[in-house]
């Protein structure tokens, strides 16, 4: 039933701790400028102890940037900022005449506002401002963005922990392939909350310093926040674009590790299956991949499992790889979207991102990530990994047009 065989990426939008748009991200990478710092936006006892990668705009600044209101969740503010940039970047002629979808992902919804509500509510169940729970549901975030962008043809929300927005992107591609939509804005957003900060802290997987993905002496992850969206278009729409698309989405796979609710299996079964599945779909060999944007959270468990799976797929010819979470922190439900933007930019600008703060190769692995910003590299095919709680593993492959 597929009438469209190729899905193109026509636009990018992003906001994270290292920039408020695509241009600022490219600049941060070029200057190897990470986004981690002390906590400023959340009122927490972990302030001054745990570094996080906050978007460097206050809610007030984000409200004036997006035109949303003060009761909206920060997740919605971030989501709209990035999604709007992506739509503008794609500059699709006659967008109003096309079937447009929004497939967005997040894990926290409006938890930042619900936390405010809950403090008063716990003391007295008749208290707490109700407008602070309007955006509680994950779906509310998508709805707000869809309404602001005027999208009604198809909207949905996906939440599969840290692989959420990678799944949103490939769901968007399938909507186009199945002739449900001509254009899909896909990706995700998450804001930092006390809920997630404390949650990851109880798991003892937060690094008290800046994270060191894939380093033998890695201690854990740094939480981040942000949003990343790509605009997927059918081949027919791609032909109408005034500037060439960034790349295609040539492969994707969603597999489940089915090992543990939070931990990855030692041999990275789910990650291995996701990477193999995406390669098979794209018709590429492992040696065709020019860059891997690793999930690379910096936790001992993830990097060990992912590294083992990478070894099983790529040994003995390892492409350059890095974890851009060493810049942005782990943006949870936004990470797949943010890293899809980085993947597309790597192809467009022939660049490979450094894995910051890497010092010592992991004993168990025969490879190490790239440590410097590289330019002028032929980047034809990029693999992007996103793995999450619940064993949800997704790999995407982006290819040169």
């Amino acid at each position, binding site marked *: 039933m597929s009438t469209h065989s190729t899905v193109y990426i026509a636009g990018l939008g992003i906001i994270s701790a290292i920039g408020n748009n695509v241009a600022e991200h490219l600049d941060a990478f070029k200057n190897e400028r990470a986004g981690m710092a002390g906590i400023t936006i959340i009122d927490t*006892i972990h302030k001054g102890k745990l570094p996080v990668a906050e978007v460097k705009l206050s809610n007030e600044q984000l409200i004036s940037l997006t035109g949303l209101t003060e009761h909206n969740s920060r997740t919605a503010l971030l989501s709209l900022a990035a999604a709007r940039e992506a739509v503008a970047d794609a500059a699709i002629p006659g967008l109003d005449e096309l079937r447009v979808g929004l497939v967005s992902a997040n894990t926290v919804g409006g938890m930042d506002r619900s936390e405010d509500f809950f403090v008063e509510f716990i003391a007295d169940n008749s208290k707490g401002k109700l407008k602070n729970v309007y955006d509680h549901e994950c779906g509310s975030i998508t709805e707000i963005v869809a309404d602001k962008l005027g999208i009604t043809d198809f909207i949905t*929300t996906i*939440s599969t922990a840290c692989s959420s927005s990678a799944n949103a992107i490939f769901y968007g591609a399938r909507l186009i392939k*199945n002739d449900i939509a001509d254009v899909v804005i896909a990706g995700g957003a998450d804001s930092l909350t006390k809920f997630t900060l404390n949650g990851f802290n109880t798991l003892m997987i937060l690094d008290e310093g800046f994270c060191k993905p894939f380093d033998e002496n890695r201690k854990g992850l740094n939480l981040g926040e942000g949003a990343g969206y790509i605009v997927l278009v059918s081949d027919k729409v791609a032909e109408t674009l005034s500037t060439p698309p960034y790349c295609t989405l040539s492969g994707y796979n969603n597999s489940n590790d*089915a090992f543990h609710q939070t931990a990855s299996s030692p041999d990275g079964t789910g990650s291995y299956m996701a990477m193999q599945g995406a390669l098979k779909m794209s018709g590429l060999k492992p040696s065709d991949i020019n860059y891997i944007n690793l999930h690379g959270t910096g936790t001992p468990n993830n990097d060990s499992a992912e590294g083992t799976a990478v070894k099983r797929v790529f040994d003995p010819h390892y492409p350059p790889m890095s974890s851009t979470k060493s810049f942005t922190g782990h943006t949870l439900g936004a990470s797949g979207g943010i890293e899809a933007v980085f993947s597309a930019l790597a192809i467009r600008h022939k660049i490979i991102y450094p894995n910051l703060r890497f010092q010592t190769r992991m004993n168990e692995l025969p490879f190490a990530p790239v440590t410097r910003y590289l330019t002028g590299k032929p980047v034809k095919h990029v693999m992007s990994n996103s793995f999450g709680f619940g*064993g949800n593993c997704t790999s995407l492959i982006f290819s040169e047009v």
Partner: protein
Amino acid sequence: MKIYIRSSACVSAQHTLGVQNFLEDIVEYTGNRLPVIEPDYKRYIDPKQIRRMSHVIKMGIAAAKECLAEAGVDMPGAIITGTAFGCMEDTITFLTRIIEYHEELLPPTAFIQSTHNTVAAQIALLLKCHNYNNTFVHKGMSFEGALFDAVMLLKEEEANNVLVGGTEEMVDTSFTVLTRLGLYRRFPVSNLDLFKTVSKGTIGGQGAAFCLLSTDISPDNLAELRAVKTLYKPKDIEEGIAGFLKANFLTITDIDLVINGKNGDINNDEPYKQLEAGLFKETTIANYKHLCGEYPTSSSFALWLASNILKKQVVPEVLLEDNKIVGPPKSVLYYNHYQGKYHSLMLLFAI
């Protein structure tokens, strides 16, 4: 390609899980919030694990495993769930502890189990199922999102069968907050009188319902799922429904039974009443939310209901408002709206 409902299982306020009779012993509740009839979870889950699981996880696993058992399938080709609120019990537990313990010495279990994909993940874990696994969380369209994905996967020939379900738990906190938001009746009502009393508000509900979609022809299939569609803020819903039927080469006269999402709230039910006087004028209409309560993924209950009606060729009287006698239906149209913004349609046929 035809897509069939191979099996369906449902945990609800009625006797719906693993029973032979079909809505013959209806349970009446008086209040503004329906519980579920708890299954014997030990039949489905290792007792050591049950203690740690929240209500929604237990309900979800029980419905999913019963559904697979009824289909005789050990390993589904994909697992897809829909939930608007996710794991509320664990979310609220963790949120409360953050505040009460001032962020110190928090146990991680509630956080670990609070992610929206927990039910789908736990099913995969129990089955050791490495296949496609996804969770949709879009308000009153969460289950429809999951179902739509399942249909696409089957059409893409990525799987021969897909386990798809909707889950929602109602905890005290969400009930209190949603009551303050004006969703529920202010005074207790019998669920069986829900449509006889005109008032603002409905009755809250919860539940878990799964079905196994399959492309395999089998005499045991419950029904054919012909189409599923969601509409966001349509200009004219009557036109939207007629358009949906037309796209499936049908008109309203081809539909033997409409299952609608009336919930007893005077404002909510207005669009249904307009359709009753318009497009659905000559069609028999069945209600279901008095049996399971109103919740964002109640459409999964409705799909269980529609599949069984078509398999058993009987429309239980409790679904009908005016005690009409209805012949054995060959086709069912499901129509529901959520807060007037989201409208969903499912079209099913007898095998």
